[in-house]
C-alpha cells in the first residue's frame, strides 16, 4: 500500500512543481488552474492511501513471500448478476437524448435512473437481487 501511496504523492508533487513553473512563467490561467487540480488529484488519494498504509497490517499482496493460501477467504459479496447497471445506463441514455429529441424523454430517463439507484442500493444492502 505504501508504494501505491508514494506513486500518487510523487505524481501530485510533480504536477505541483509543473504548475508552479507554468503559473509564474505563463500569462494564461486556465492551464495553471487545471494543473493545480491535477496536483490535488495526486495528493488526495495519495494522502488517503498513505494515511491508511500506516494503520493497516501488511497485506499478503504486499508481501513478496506470501503464499496463495494467505489470501484465502471471502473478499466481498456482490450480486452474481444485476439488471440495474443496464437500467441505469439506459436511463442515462434517455436523459442525454432528451437534450436533443425533446424534454419528454427526461420522464422515462430519470424514472429509470431513480429505479436503478434504488434497486442497486437495495441489492447491495441485501447482498443480491431477489
Amino acid at each position, binding site marked *: *500500500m*505504501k*508504494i*501505491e501511496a508514494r506513486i*500518487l504523492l510523487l*505524481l501530485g508533487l*510533480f*504536477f505541483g512543481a*509543473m504548475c508552479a*513553473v*507554468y503559473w509564474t*512563467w*505563463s500569462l*494564461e490561467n*486556465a*492551464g495553471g488552474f*487545471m494543473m493545480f*487540480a*491535477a496536483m490535488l*488529484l495526486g495528493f488526495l488519494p495519495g494522502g488517503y492511501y498513505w494515511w491508511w498504509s500506516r494503520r493497516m497490517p501488511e497485506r*499478503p*499482496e*504486499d*508481501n*513478496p*513471500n*506470501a*503464499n*496463495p*493460501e*494467505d*489470501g*484465502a477467504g*471471502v*473478499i466481498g*459479496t*456482490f*450480486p*452474481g*448478476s*444485476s*439488471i*440495474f*447497471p*443496464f437500467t*441505469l*445506463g*439506459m436511463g*442515462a*441514455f434517455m436523459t*442525454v*437524448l432528451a*437534450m*436533443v*429529441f425533446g424534454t419528454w424523454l427526461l420522464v422515462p430517463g430519470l424514472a429509470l435512473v431513480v429505479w436503478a439507484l434504488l434497486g442497486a442500493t437495495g441489492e447491495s444492502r*441485501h*447482498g*443480491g*437481487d*431477489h
Partner: protein
Amino acid sequence: MTDVLDTPLVQQSDAPAAHEEHHGHDEHHGPSGILNWLTTTDHKIIGMSYTITAVIMLLIGGAFAELIRAQLVSPNGHLVTFAQYNELFTMHGSVMIYLFAGPFAFGALANFVVPIQIGAPDMAFPRLNALSYWLYLSGSITMLLGFVTAGGAANFGWVGYSPLSDSINAPGAGADLWIGGLLLTGFSAIFTGVNLAATIFYLRAPGMTLFRMPIFTWNLLVTAILILLAFPVLTAGLIMLFADRHFGTHIFSVSGGGVPVLWQHIFWFWGHPEVYILALPFFGMVTEIIPVFSRKPVFGYKGMVFATLTIAALSLGVWAHHMFTTGVVLLPFFSIMSLLIAVPTGIKLFNWIGSMWRGQIWFSTAMLMSIGFVVTFLIGGLTGIYLASPPLDFFTHDTYFVVAHFHSVVMALVLGGMAGLYYWGPKMTGYMLNETLGKIQFWLLFIGTQVFTFPQYILGLQGMPRRMAVYPHDPQWQNLNLWSTLGAVMIGVSSLLFAINCIVSWKKVPAGDNPWDAHTLEWFTTSPPPHHNFYRLPKIRSERPTWDYNHPEAPALAHGNGEGSHS
C-alpha cells in the same frame, strides 16, 4: 433465475495435483441468453462485449476513412458534398478516437485481462463495470445517431473547436448528439478508470507485489490514473459547450466576452493525456507479447515502469503543443516538455529491442504484429519530435504531415491491438485464430500502413492542408493521394481478413491453457477462464509466475525475487 452469489476468493492451492479440482460453489448460476448478457457483471463477458463493440466501431470508422480516401483520389472529387465530407472526417476521427481506440484500450482487453493477470476473481466494482459498458454502448449509438438527423452528424472536426461548434455555425442536432455521446462515453471511461485503479490496488493475489505486476497491468494502472486526471476536464468542457449552445452563456464566444481559445486549452488538457490513455495499454500489450515470443523476461522491467510513469507525468504538461500556432501559448515550456516525452518513449523502444536481443523469436502473428507496431511507432514517434519544435510546427501545422504523423502512431496502435487480439483471443474464446490468414493480414496491414502514411508526409511538406474535400490540381498531389488511398484500401482489406479469420477459426483448434508458453497468470487458468477466473493459483515469486511454474529448470531471474519488499 437469479441467485445471491457469495464471492469466494480464488480457491487457493499450490499443489499441482489439484489441477482437476473443481469447486461446485464456484459455478455460476445466472440467467442465460440475452438476459445473461444484459445482467452480467462478469468482467470477462463485459470485456468481450467491449471488444466486439470496439471492433465494430473500428470497422465503421474505417468505412468512413475509405470514403474520405475515395473522395481524395481526384482533386475535384464528386463522391460526397463539402458538407458530407466535413461530417465524414469529423465522425471518422470521433469514432476512431472516442469509440474505438479508447474503449478498446482500457475497456476491452484490459477488462478481460487485468483482473486475471493479478489473480483477482473479478473487477473491484463489477456492477460499475457493467454500467461502464452500457454507457459506452449508448454513447456510441448517441454519437452515430447524428447521421439520421435532418442536419447530419457533427461537422466541426473531432476536436470541436469553438466557435465552429457553437449554435450559429453548427445548429444541427448532430452536434448535440456528438456532445451527448461524449458525455456518456466520458463517464464510462471515468468509471472504468476508477474500477481499474481500485482493482489493481486492492485485488492482487498474495505475493503479487506492485513490482511483480505484468507491464500490461502497470500500464493500465497508469492509464486509469490518467483517465481520472483528464476525462473530468473534457466532461466539464462539454457541459460548458452545451451551455453556450443552448443556455445563452458566453464562455467560448467573443461576443459575450468569452474566450474561444479556452476551449482549445480545455480540450487539449484532456486531449494530450488522452493520446497516452490510448497508447499506454497498447504499449503494455506489446510489452507482454514480445518477451513471451522471445522466451525471455521483459528487458529493463523497472525502467519500463519508470518510463510509463514519466510519460504520464509529462503528458499533463504538453497540451498546448497542439496550439503552437495560436500565438497565445508559452512556446518554450510546451516545447521542452513535449521533447522530453521522447526520452521515456525511447527507453520503451530500446527495452522492446532488448527483450528480443539474444532471444528465441517465434514469429507468430501476434509477434509479427508487435514488431510491426514497434517499427510503425518508431516512425510516428520520430515525426512527433519535429512537431514538438514550435518553428517546425508553424511549418507543418494542420497539413497532411500532422495527419501522417498521428496516423503512423494510431496505425501502430491498431497493429498492437491486433497483436493483442491474436495473443489473448485464444484465452478469451478458447480457440486459436488461423495463423496463415493472420500473417497475410499482418503483411497487408503493415505495408498498407506505410503506403498510406508516407505519401501524406510528402503531401504535408508540400503544403496540402488537412480536412480538404477538394484540392488544387497538381499531378504530383494527385499521385500521392492515389498512393495513400491504395494504402487505405490495403488496410481495409486486412480488416476484412480479420473478420473472415474470426469466422473460419471459430471452434476449430482448441487453445489449451497456455498455447504460447506465456509468462503471466492469465495463462495459468483455463481458456476461457471459469466464472471467477481461477481454480488455483501458483506461488508468485517474480513477474512471471506461470513461467516459473512451468519452467522450474530455468534459472530464476537475477532481480525477480523480493522486489518491492523494501517498503
